[in-house]
């Protein structure tokens, strides 16, 4: 129990620290790098929770692909540390922080006071199950259509992103 606690808290601290850094870093490149670290940490948490497949995907998709994308775009823009990285205004800033904190408080409060979904089998039994296989079955049966839709989505995004990036400009652009 203690070890689990230590593992959790260290991961949690790691995560929160880098999430904060992502938020606070004035240089977007730094933000991106902190985000990578956060995501890696998250993969660790997933692993900790027994979702090994997901943890793997997290590492590949997020920490790998997405972050490369971010960094590349940022390089494209050639940005330096920003002077005004944050929105200004004491009232709105305070409001934003308060709102987020309030929401967090409410969420945690509700978690503490709520019954979670009825447990079919003991939590300990879980890791034995072959998540990855079951996931695959579900994907190709019940969620087949959604899965295909996801494929369409990716195609669409691919086409769309290319089109958007290729845009030269409006009617005033030369043909």
């Amino acid at each position, binding site marked *: 129990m203690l070890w689990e606690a230590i593992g959790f808290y260290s991961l949690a601290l790691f995560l929160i620290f880098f999430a904060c850094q992502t938020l606070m870093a004035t240089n977007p490149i730094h933000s991106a790098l902190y985000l990578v670290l956060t995501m890696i940490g998250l993969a660790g948490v997933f692993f900790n929770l027994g979702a090994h497949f997901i943890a793997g995907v997290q590492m590949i998709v997020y920490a790998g692909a997405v972050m490369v994308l971010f960094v590349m775009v940022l390089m494209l823009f050639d940005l330096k540390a920003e002077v005004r990285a944050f929105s200004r205004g004491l009232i709105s800033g305070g409001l*934003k922080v308060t709102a987020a904190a*309030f929401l967090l408080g409410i969420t945690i409060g509700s978690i503490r006071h709520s019954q979670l979904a009825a447990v079919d089998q003991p939590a300990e039994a879980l890791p034995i199950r072959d998540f990855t296989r079951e996931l695959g079955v579900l994907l190709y049966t019940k969620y087949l259509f959604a899965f295909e839709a996801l494929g369409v989505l990716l195609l669409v995004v691919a086409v769309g992103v290319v089109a958007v990036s290729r845009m030269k400009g409006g009617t005033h652009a030369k043909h």
Partner: protein
Amino acid sequence: MNHALLIFTLLLAPLIGFAINGLRFRSQNYILAGSIATGAAAISFLCSLLLFNQLLGLPADERVLATRFFDWITVGQMKVPFGFVVDQISVVMILIITGVGSLIHLFSVGYMSHDERPAKYFAYLNLFLFNMLLLVLGDNLLITFVGWEGVGLCSYLLIGFWFSDPAKAAAGMKAFVTNRIGDAGFLIGIFILFFTFGTVNFFDLSAMMPDLAETSWTAPVTLACLFLFVGATGKSAQIPLYVWLPDAMAGPTPVSALIHAATMVTAGVYLFVRMSSVLVVAPLAMEVIAWTGALTALIAATIGMTQWDIKKVLAYSTVSQLGYMFLAVGVGAFSAAQFHLMTHAFFKALMFLGSGSVIHAMHEEQDIRKMGGLRKYMPITYLTFLMGWLAIIGVPPFAGFFSKDEILWQAFSSPHGGKVLWFIGAVTAVCTAFYMTRLMALTFWGKSRFGHDVHPHESPVSMTAPLMILGVLSVVGGWIGIPHIIGEVLPGHPGNVFHHWLEPVIAKVEAGHASAALEWTLMGVSVLLAAVAAWFAYDSYVINRERPANFAKRIAPLYLAVSNKYYVDEFYFGRIINPLVDVAKGLWLYIDVNVIDRATYVAGDLVSGLAAFVKTIQSGKTQSYALYMTLGVVVIVTIVLLRG
């Protein structure tokens, strides 16, 4: 001849005359127009005579010729037919109306010969006859009201006949509006009677009257009579609504003679004679009527003493004489009122026509200060006018003497009357004698004061003939109503024919118990006073011509007040009409524009202001939008979780 057909013809003749002349209103052929109109009036007069003849042939208790043409308004209990009735009262009226009317029509032919629109004039005149006949023949209050308003309308049209003059147009309007005020009261009177008795038929109403007189001011009959009297004050120019009549002299003079002397203005008197059995149930109302009549008589007479316009004098005189009639009505002397109505119709029409003749001769000059000595130039007019003068100041045996004296006597002796009423009446008689003599003196007697470019001449026969007829009537008209005590001493003992004629249809008021000696005395006093006043006036205006002016100077404030008609018009305009106009403007500008519309705009501004606010928070800042969303979530979640 069938009486229904006669009544029909009687009514229709002037209407057709109106239609013919109305359609050819542009015509300037005054002879043709006049002939048509006069012919129509004459046909009506003929019918009236035939109807009178038929009535004579009936027994005294059954002298009613009734007919119904068609149902007019039939709603719920309110069943109003176009029903007409000729009885003792209305036959007198139609004879006066059509008789005097015919004469005045005839007179008008000459009088209007130079006018641009004679056809229109005669059309209006015929229309007036029609309406007046409706008024007096109607067998119910509503038909009477139709005529009542109708005559007011014609009066409006005729007063404003020469509309190019704004003052004349204004006079017409004043007449109509003032009458309307009365009419409004009349309407309420009708309502009260209808909802109390369920009918507006005169005869049904009479039959349904309770035996006991009402003693409360708010009892229905009393209230109804008071409201009807409001109507009468308008139409018959009593206090406080008499103000229109003097102004009404703006119309052509024959109109003044017909409408504003002989017929229309007496409608109020007719109404109460007709409704005598209703009125006697309401002694309080009678008291009000008597006092109003008496005061009107006196006040109008005093004003009459100071007027310089020949027609204005006659107008105030008319008001004053109408006051007499109401005095009579108020003391229950209904037949006396009706009698005076008739004689007054003769002599006042005569005097008006005479004045018309004078004005015609003087080229539209009406100021008596610029006349004088016309006796030489206009002998027939003078002579006939003289008859009228004698009649109105009550010289026996002229018509006015009998009728006026009966009223005075009744005012004295009737249980509803009293010494004060008699005294007021007597003072009025003195005043009347004074101003009438003054009028005679300034117009016909003395030296002429008009310019050299004016060449007065006697009027044509078509104008003098009516004068002569009316002159005769002013003399003999009173002989059918010779008071009992005089009749006793006369050879053949002529009774009070008029009174007997009306007796079956009017309410009986307990006669006063006073000795014949007293009656003789009072009669003598009033005649004597009148004679003195007349002599005094003659003396002042023909012989000692400075005296009036000096006297006026000595009582300057009073004189000023009287000659300015006690500032009643000024009061009405300054205290009622102008403030009302101001209030109306205020309502428009403040309530409509500043309150109601403003409220609408405020609603609009509110939305507009909100719109500005919505536009402000729609700042275009993505993060603000996200914040709104977050706040929304926070608020909703808080409510759901904390209150749930």
